[in-house]
């Protein structure tokens, strides 16, 4: 049977994709209303309507998802629902809601409809991305996602930085898509299939084609760009700094969750026979050593480069590179525990990062971008400062916040994956780099809490919706840290 023309029942497809359809409809509705009825009203009113409809769409999608069959699938791996994809899709929708709520007070654009619709379309793309095990659909969904993100990055038309960031992101992204497509075509050529489990079955022969290693490297390069892992990270600091704050937060959270999940699916499901081994003195070629190299490099480059940053966004960008290194440990573990550790890590990380960018967005109107500008924040806005403390300490991995348990869990999963502590050196490196990271997070907090305010600045006022969202995010970060079981249960680990 030609794998590309597997027969699909359209009614079945319709039944399975109700959440995505609801989101798409909400996106179209936002666009249409904003261009017609709301044309003449104020920006604030349009924002309220746009964000409201978009949030309603996301909530509807969450409900539809809750009622859908968690074990459904379409032939040829085009659409595969598992309890895990359920959790990831719900997390993506929740992150979309948080991002939308944080954009209540955006001032950089008057194209509200397009903005909300693009956020929704990007979320649709991610929902398809995580629910497929078909190389072709993975690529299509990934490109759909990337296109939406390019536009979101360059959405601030008055800012040269935003345009530069978008162009840079686009050029790097397009090139990485080329690598990815090349790798995928090699995989198809080697296995004769584009379905991940079938690729794995076809590859599990005694001898392996050298072309497979080329394919692995190509796929790793392609996804390495998407997750901003070193040495493919160069776009990230500029994109995070230049993009509108809300877009940057979205880029750093949701797209990370989706990309990591599908990256793990591709290598763990599709390339399981070619895993190889990265243990000390027991090295074997495969994707595990490749990823170990990328992970180690990301941890070192990200954390060390973050030490020297003075801009908050660039600091967050480099710390994101470091975190990508930690998260790769979850894929390197290639065990059910590793996958659940990866998902716990990336979801809690996304919550903290959305929150951190939300705070930056709230401070944007004050012209705060450099670390030193935060001076006196704890007196000007005690609530905002406390939220910042929670988010950054969670990123640094201080208990009882969720970032700590995430690190503990992912380190143990990775260490348990090789017998005789084969990966101990990598864990020691990760632990050491995590100690380094505390320094730059504390520098930010020092500015916010310790440094005296330069002059008598007035109290900061932030929109109620922003405040509320930040508090909810901070509460989630604390709650998931104190009771990780809440999330672990749904991640399939007993």
């Amino acid at each position, binding site marked *: 049977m030609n794998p590309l023309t597997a027969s699909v029942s359209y009614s079945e497809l319709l039944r399975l994709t109700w959440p995505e359809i609801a989101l798409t409809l909400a996106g179209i509705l936002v666009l249409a209303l904003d261009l017609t009825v709301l044309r003449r009203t104020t920006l604030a009113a349009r924002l309220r309507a746009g964000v409201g409809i978009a949030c309603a769409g996301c909530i509807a999608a969450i409900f539809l998802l809750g009622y859908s069959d968690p074990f459904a699938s379409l032939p040829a791996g085009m659409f595969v629902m598992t309890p895990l994809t359920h959790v990831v899709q719900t997390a993506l929708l929740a992150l979309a809601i948080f991002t939308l709520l944080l954009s209540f007070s955006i001032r950089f654009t008057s194209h509200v409809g397009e903005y909300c619709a693009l956020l929704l379309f990007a979320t649709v793309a991610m929902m398809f991305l995580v629910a497929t095990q078909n190389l072709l659909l993975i690529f299509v969904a990934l490109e759909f996602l990337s296109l939406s993100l390019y536009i979101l990055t360059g959405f601030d038309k008055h800012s040269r930085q935003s345009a530069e960031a978008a162009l840079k992101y686009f050029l790097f992204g397009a090139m990485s898509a080329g690598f990815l497509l090349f790798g995928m075509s090699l995989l198809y050529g080697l296995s004769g299939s584009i379905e991940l489990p079938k690729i794995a079955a076809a590859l599990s022969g005694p001898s392996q084609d050298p072309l497979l290693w080329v394919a692995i490297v190509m796929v790793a390069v392609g996804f390495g760009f998407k997750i901003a892992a070193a040495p493919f990270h160069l776009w990230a600091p500029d994109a995070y700094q230049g993009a509108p704050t809300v877009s940057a937060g979205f880029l750093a959270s949701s797209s990370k969750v989706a990309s990591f999940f599908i990256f793990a699916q591709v290598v763990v499901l599709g390339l399981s026979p070619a895993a190889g081994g990265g243990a000390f003195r027991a090295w074997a070629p495969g994707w595990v050593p490749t990823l170990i190299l990328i992970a180690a490099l990301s941890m070192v480059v990200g954390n060390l480069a973050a030490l020297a940053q003075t801009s908050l966004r660039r600091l967050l960008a480099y710390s994101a590179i470091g975190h990508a290194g930690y998260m790769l440990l979850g894929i390197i573990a290639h065990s059910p525990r590793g996958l659940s550790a990866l998902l716990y890590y990336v979801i809690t990380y996304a919550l903290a990062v959305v929150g951190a960018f939300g705070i930056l967005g709230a401070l944007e109107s004050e012209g705060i971008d450099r670390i030193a500008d935060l001076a006196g924040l704890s007196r000007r806005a005690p609530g905002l400062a406390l939220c910042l403390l929670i988010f950054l300490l969670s990123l640094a991995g201080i*208990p*009882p916040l969720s970032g700590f348990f995430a690190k503990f869990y992912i380190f143990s999963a990775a260490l*348990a994956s090789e017998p005789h502590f084969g990966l101990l050196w990598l864990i*020691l490196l990760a632990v050491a780099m995590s*100690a380094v990271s505390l320094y730059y997070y504390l520098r930010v907090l020092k500015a916010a809490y310790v440094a005296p305010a330069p002059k008598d600045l007035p109290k900061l006022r932030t929109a109620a919706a922003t405040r509320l969202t930040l508090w909810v995010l901070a509460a989630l970060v604390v709650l998931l840290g104190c009771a990780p*079981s809440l999330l672990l249960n749904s991640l399939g680990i*007993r």
Partner: protein
Amino acid sequence: MLAWTIYVSFLGAFAARMAPSKLAARILALLTALAGLALSLTALVQWQPGNLVTVADVSWIPQLGISYHLAADGISLTLLLLTGIAATAGILFSWNINQRTQEFFAFYLVLIGGVYGVFLSFDLFLLFVFYEIAIIPKYFLIAIWGSVPRDAAPGQQGSQREYAAMKLALYSFGGSALVLAGMVAAWVLSGSVTGTHTLDLQTLAGIAFPAHFQMWAFPLVFLGFAVLAGMWPFHTWAPTGHAAAPTAASMLLAGVVMKLGAYGCLRVAMMLFPAGLNAWGFHILGFGSWRDVIAVLALIGIVYGASVALVQRDFKFVIGYSSVSHMGFVLLGLMTLTRIGLDGAVLQMFSHGIIAGLLFAVVGRMVYDRAHTRQLSELSPMRLAHVIPFAAVTFVLAAMASIGMPGFSGFVAEFQIIVGAWRTLPWMAAVAGVGILIGIAFTWRALTTVFFGERAAHAAADHDHTLPPVTLPEKCGAILLLAATLVVGLYPAILTRLILPSLNSPLFQGLRNGAWR
């Protein structure tokens, strides 16, 4: 009941942060600390020798076999009592904090809650959680409310204490990173040895981990904790941190936080990986085991700390380095691997906690806050014994306790450590004795220069400086600490009856089987 020491501290921190006035915050903080002290005293009185009191044991993260297990044996109870006393005294000595008072006590009580948590935790994961909770408040306490020497340039005052605070935080976090690595490894191995993953200390203490694993896990975890215990050469955070911290924070740092490290060395590293102390089977530069290495480092700490204290010009640095020296005794006591030596080590943790608190209280609160200088040369002409006699009397008593005068707790502790060392590491006992002699020298030097200095030739002959009198909270705090060191010094059985049976408990079976002499 005992678990409430933790909860009360965290609740108190919240209440103090929300307090409407500075006085309310102070009173709330004091009440919280007193409640913690009362709870630990009650538990101590009710304790049956040899018992392991389980306070709480509920499944916390069942997926990973992690439980919320709080329990206390005699060693924990001793240190809980220390925490209660030190916390109460620290609040009494920070009654004069006027800048951002509510926040100060909030951070302070979070630190205390974390410390109580470490001493009560019987799950390694939980212990680590509390251990790290204690790090961040330390940073802010020093960075925001720290004291700086007057001769620092105006622009550098902030940066100096921020330097000290950051150094302290990074050393602590670096140490705990090593512990984290050891903990992850123990978790993984517990799964392959017993079939189910666990981090429960009681269960882990019963597992005989493979000897080659213990051989590298022991130094990793021991070193991680020993950084916070001020082991040479990882002690450098201690003097700068102590000197830059506000009085109450130095009291807590030296009094309690350094004990967290020593406690972790005993409770985690030595209790779980006792085989790590066995001989390597070969010698490098005369070292035949990790025990030799650590004992020598402890010894260097004793002598080096005391010698450096002897030449300091800054009063607070004298006490800061003396802490390094006294904590060296704790580590040496642990490495004697004799019952009496370990007993002495735990007693020294208690004793040094009280005495260092007292010394820092005199230096930071009674002297510096009044005289506004810490330079010995500037303090000398002030003849403080005449100006603030209460401070002088307190310091004389504290100095006597510190140099190991019989009748004070320091004597009982260091005597036992030396006896223990004499049995197993005789030449080290001799060197430690030299360390005590240098200790007498630097204490004598500080005492005579600061309080009984020569009247400066050019100063007016008839009037002394007038400084504000010692306040009631300070007197209460000083008396509390003095009483504690005297009671334990005169009747050490009050604590040894707690410590010795605990050392005989099944928890330390591995240590007794192994290298115990």
